[in-house]
């Protein structure tokens, strides 16, 4: 099979970009989408043209590095898979395929199809953790976690941090990403002490990074490679409301080193 690619090319953040059209060489339908790009890039390089920059690493749907919008959809045509798990058999001979980067104000472009998603890390820095020093943990089986909670926490914890939810959202909101972390930790007994502080800090940082608000269109859930559920956003909203009612956490009198 062969396809025609319309690819976003942009040398750097400060130079204008444009779509360029490339004809693929003969392809095997069992190739992954990224292997198809590898093959196209080898051709470009051999012709003396600059290869298309795109992000990737694990190529098995777990690291969250790959980040393409394929025919208008982050991570391409299929539900529940990342770009790297998209195979050419999902396309037909002669198809024209449009390939763009994940676009959002909070994701500045680096080159061609590569964007900078460090804003997501900064949200995690704000509170995406349980404060436990190395060496200070009790025996693991002293903390009982009902299987249902552990399973639900795992459903949320699977987030690969790719940012497809942001790219799909018309408001470029990162609510699903934040909700996944907040729910994962909030569902576990270990996560209770910092539960309200965490949700407030993370949501505030999300706003500060320039991500938009959530209007519950569900486009994030639809493109999430790990099919993380919108229910987690509802869960986070409840926690956030509770955190606002409780106000800033106050230290208990007399605590701390004397």
């Amino acid at each position: 099979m062969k396809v025609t690619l319309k690819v976003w090319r942009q040398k750097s953040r400060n130079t204008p970009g444009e779509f360029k059209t490339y004809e693929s060489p003969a392809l095997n339908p069992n190739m992954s989408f990224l292997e198809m790009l590898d093959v196209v890039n080898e051709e470009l390089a051999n012709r003396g043209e600059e290869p298309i920059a795109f992000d990737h690493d694990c190529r098995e749907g777990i690291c969250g590095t790959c980040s393409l919008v394929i025919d208008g959809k982050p991570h391409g045509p299929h539900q529940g898979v990342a770009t790297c798990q998209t195979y050419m058999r999902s396309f037909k001979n002669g198809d024209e395929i449009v390939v763009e980067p994940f676009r959002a104000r909070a994701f500045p472009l680096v080159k061609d199809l590569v964007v900078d998603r460090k804003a997501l890390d900064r949200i995690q820095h704000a509170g995406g953790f349980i404060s436990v020093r190395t060496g200070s943990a009790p025996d693991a089986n002293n903390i009982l976690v009902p299987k249902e909670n552990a399973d639900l926490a795992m459903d949320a914890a699977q987030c690969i941090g790719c940012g497809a939810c942001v790219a799909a959202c018309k408001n470029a909101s990162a609510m699903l990403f934040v909700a996944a972390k907040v729910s994962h930790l909030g569902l576990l007994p270990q996560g209770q002490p910092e539960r309200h502080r965490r949700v407030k800090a993370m949501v505030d940082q999300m706003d500060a990074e320039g991500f938009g608000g959530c209007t519950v269109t569900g486009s994030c859930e639809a493109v999430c490679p790990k099919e993380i559920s919108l229910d987690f956003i509802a869960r986070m909203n409840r926690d956030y409301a509770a955190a606002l009612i409780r106000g800033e956490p106050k230290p208990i009198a007399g605590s701390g080193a004397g």
Partner: protein
Amino acid sequence: MATLNSNIPAGPLAQKWEHHKFSTKLINPANKRKYKIIVVGAGLAGSSAAATLAELGYEVHNFVFHDSPRRAHSVAAQGGINAAKNYQNDGDSVHRLFYDTIKGGDFRAREANVHRLAEVSVNIIDQCAAQGVPFAREYGGLLDNRSFGGAQVSRTFYARGQTGQQLLLGAYSALCRNIANGGVKSHTHAEMLDLVVVDGHAKGIIVRNLQTGEITRHNADAVVLATGGYGNAYNLSTYARGSNATAIWRAYKRGACFGNPCYTQIHPTCIPVSGDYQSKLTLMSESLRNDGRVWVPKKKDDCKRNPADIAESDRDYYLERMYPAFGNLAPRDIASRAAKVVCDEGRGIGETGLGVYLDFADAIKRLGEGKVRERYGNLFAMYHEITNEDAYQTPMRIYPAMHYTMGGLWVDYNLMSNLPGLFVLGEANFSDHGANRLGASALMQGLADGYFVLPATISGYLATQKPDKRPATDNAAFKQAEESVQTITKRLLNNKGSRTPASFHKALGKLIWEHCGMARTKAGLERGIKLIGELREQYWKHVKVAGEAGEWNQSLENAGRVADFMELGELLCRDALHREESCGGHFREEYQYTKNDAEVQQGLVNPGDVKRRDDVFAYVAAWEYAGEGKAPVLNKEPLVYEEVKMSTRSYK
């Protein structure tokens, strides 16, 4: 010659670590912040180390080539992590985990290191559970376990098929907390391209910013490398595409010894190669061998038939037949070689004939499809995406693939290299797995090194260094290292060649796989060394790198990494050539059991099993760089076994 002192503490094995921690010098709390430590890498080993060192009060700088620490290749580990908790009450203990690991490594690891690993394994699980790692649970709320190859107890903790991801996110969360409170400065998209050595001590690194191309110098009192394994030298592997050996290789060229490079692990259960365009091989977790049964047809003529039409009596469940005690859970090196043997006999399945079946029909009958789905659902889904086949209906096709490297930079008991001030953790060092690693033990080692070992040992070195006295970055050694990096970059970009780095990487991978893969011979290795040398010459003549230095340039990144793999590939073959024995993942055809050997007649091993030569080769081979174009120098660290008797490794 390098001086190799393993610094294994004296005293009874089980008390070495306790004693050593007590006798290691501490740094007083007020002085800790005066020491700056560079940690390169944020996989399980790097992020756990960086977070813990910052908690102790050191000034930590963390560097990763990824855009975020959370993307380190550890994220891809599927199956689980071992720990001697004995929660299942099935007879596990620190000693049993120690023994299984020593035996699994075919008696080529250091006893003291492995014992320490088994000891701290229990703390790892506690630490991770407290961080909120959502391990699998039983209905009562307790932690669940599964079994893994090379063990007869259930000691593996897991989080569905995404254990590495969850452990990494746990360590990343600890890192985030310490970034937020200022303990760690995180440098991302920052690739270390050289180690700076001042007066024989590691005192800094040279880094390229992958977004801007800017080259910067960074000084420190100690440098920690946790940069992962070098398996991508084989090009096709289960590693992420970005995994590379540049950090450890350039440290090697600055004087750090490379331990046992030929100990590489070929994993038995990966999806077979389908075409020349292939960029990576996907692992199907070893945990599948708990319930899946491995077989090939007994008759060559059946190989192309639909497996459903092959009668039970015409199937050869060869692992169950050859290794009845461990069956499908035989260790990786053994299971991989057995697959190669049956395929070489012409009984392999699939289009290429390089494949065997992993069949779940019995498990589905016994447990029901629901239970199988619950245990392995995501793996079956992954298999389906890649092959378009439904493994609930028809057996999976699998074949061995390059997966892990036991070798790595040589380190002593303190995880310090022969270059003082350079520490090496995780898959990047050679320390704990001998000639073969057991499943679910790499995650354990990475976290042991990062959370518990290095934070306790590094003070021993720092105490010998005056606080606030590290060399400044205008020191001549920094200047020289930066120039050396710039020279390589210029040479690559200015080369007027015609072939891409990727095409060379493919060629190199094929050479190494063919000459230094699952079965190695003297003649093959000699030929491999010659051909790799020729390819390297071609590389520098004909490589063509697109783009410029001062921008995001994946061609350039890749070109540097491939250049290092070219050199490392040769060392790999040299080491394999010099080791005239078979052990673990290193199989030399000349050294295998035959039906005339007593061990075979006693029923301990099968003909074709690996044959060690303890009288000659019970040592660690630590290779030392001798300069461009010169043969590397071999240093030997004898392996002294005080507790265990080196014996024939039997899984029958």
